């Protein structure tokens, strides 16, 4: 009875709606699995908190308070009333700086990831789909080259040539960290390509482009997403490293820039711990939350990993 029931309902909806219905079902199933992953839920909680903080920053901190000329606090003061995390050398509240810094840090992390993952996904998908052909060999060689060379040093060299600006840092991180996603996505595309329904689509006369976008991409998309979450963590850490080396954009306060300013102002030798500790803890929390979400997603998508 039930089988006929489903058959009847299937006939009443259009194929397109059916596809979306199935995708929604799969998403719901994944969410149920994800919800039971404690690590994933804790990570997601922290991640949403920081995203909310970044969005709400303009409401919480007024621009005058983080402007060196108009800041009201006493310079280099340890935590006191009204300044729970103390002040920097301009008398700006460190708490305000950390709140405002979340915007640039997350912006760089997420945007650089979009650059890296779209580059990596395109190259990986095309390379995997044309697996074994000259296109694949060429793209794979480029990917392997980027995997092998010391990319962090390349990023340092690139940003010192191109100059310090948020957008340049985003492009530099994106261009130097796409190889890892590309390799992963290529492997996925190779395995999806071998499935019978792809062959069927080809027999039915689908173009390469249609097969790639309609059949392979939707299947690889979850893996791309999980990888992107992990890449955000790496991008935030890379931005911090570049900033600490003085390659950051000093006009756009990120957590890395705060640490660098504290370091060059001698916060370490003078013992101004309140200036250096909070931005670092913020970076650890955000990176950890993205990493935890990424691992949890990986577990949901890869049944072999479950229960670890």
């Amino acid at each position: 009875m039930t089988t006929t029931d489903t058959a009847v309902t299937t006939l009443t909806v259009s194929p397109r709606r059916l596809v979306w219905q199935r995708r929604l079902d799969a998403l719901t199933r994944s969410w149920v699995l994800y919800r039971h992953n404690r690590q994933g839920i804790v990570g997601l909680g922290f991640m949403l908190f920081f995203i909310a903080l970044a969005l709400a920053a303009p409401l919480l901190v007024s621009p005058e308070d983080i402007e060196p000329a108009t800041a009201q606090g006493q310079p280099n003061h340890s935590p006191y009333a009204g300044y729970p995390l103390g002040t920097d050398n301009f008398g700006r509240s460190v708490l305000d700086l950390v709140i405002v810094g979340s915007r640039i840090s997350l912006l760089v992390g997420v945007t650089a990831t979009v650059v890296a993952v779209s580059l990596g996904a395109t190259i990986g998908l095309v390379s995997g789909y044309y697996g074994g052909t000259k296109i694949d060999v060429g793209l794979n060689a480029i990917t392997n080259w980027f995997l092998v060379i010391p990319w962090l040093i390349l990023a340092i060299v690139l940003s010192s040539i191109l100059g310090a600006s948020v957008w340049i840092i985003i492009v530099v991180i994106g261009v130097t960290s796409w190889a890892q996603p590309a390799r992963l996505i290529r492997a996925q595309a190779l395995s999806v390509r071998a499935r019978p329904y792809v062959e069927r689509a080809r027999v039915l006369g689908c173009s390469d482009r249609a097969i790639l976008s309609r059949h392979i991409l939707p299947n690889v998309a979850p893996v791309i997403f999980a990888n992107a979450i992990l890449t955000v963590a790496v991008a935030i850490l890379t931005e911090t490293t570049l900033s600490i080396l003085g390659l950051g954009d000093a006009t756009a306060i990120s957590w890395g820039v705060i640490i660098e300013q504290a370091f060059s102002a001698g916060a370490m030798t003078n013992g101004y711990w309140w200036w250096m500790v909070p931005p670092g803890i913020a970076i650890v929390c955000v990176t950890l939350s993205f990493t935890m979400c990424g691992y949890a997603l990986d577990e949901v998508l890869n049944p072999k990993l479950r229960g670890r």
Partner: protein
Amino acid sequence: MRLRYVARKLGWAAVTLLFVLCFNFFLFRIMPGDPAGLLARSQRLTETEIAEQRAIFGLDKPLLSQFWTYLQETFSGNLGTSYLTGLPVLETIGTRVWPTVLLVGVGTTAAVWLGLRMGIKGGWRRGSTFDRSSLYGSLTLYSTPEGWLGMMLLIIFAGSFGWFPVGGYDSGEDYTGLAHVIDVAKHLFLPAATLALGYGASYMIVMRSSLLEVKDEDFIATARAKGLTETMVRRRHAVPNAILPSFTLIVLSFGFVLGGAIVIETIFSYPGIGLLTYQAIDAFDYPVLQGVFLISSVAVVIANLFADVTYGFLDPRIEEV
């Protein structure tokens, strides 16, 4: 077959390095401002002086002939002259190699030892208190920027406790023999610890997950059925099979470790290639930056070649792929 495998890997390493050379050349020429323009950015030069510099760099010649000269010069060991020191780049880098080799060598060895041990111990008893705490500890350390970790260690152990010096390679005193070794070791401890903690954490995560993958294989059950003790099963059957993938990942991360060394050396004013890079960034010393990228690429490619070849011998299955 083995020879063919080694030859293929050698060929790939050569091609990679050739790519690095091309990349290095075009990167510094096509980017905003040529070397003379970049020089003008760091020092105030008149138009004629810039033109003179152009002639010295050979920038008035066509690009292809410039590239040819560049290849010839690079292969004969001439990487240009540092703006900062006025010495040849190779010599400038050469004087800074030892501290970095020491730091990266000691740091990586400690990281590998720590990471593998913890990963094996945790993975073998999945879900135990040790496993959970070391996994979360590693995830936290993995999420910590090395530079900031170094600053924290510096504030705590050199600042508050005063157990270690705040930076440098040695204290500059005329120590000899054992006293000198202790002096150098004291200065090395914190930067090497930063490196070991930062990268040991990711090695732990990798080792743990590859051990978990091996643990449920049939041959482990067979080994147990033979009546081997748990320790023997782990040592003889599980670890040797799980260590290979970790080994590749560790070598692949070598380039990343070199990048991390730049920040760590900067924080601890440790006078190696990393600190040199930081000074070069500050002074727009592009020939040195170019040289650092080239030399670190050569180091990484050689490390990978070494790993690939050893891997080929350790795991015979690799040749079939």
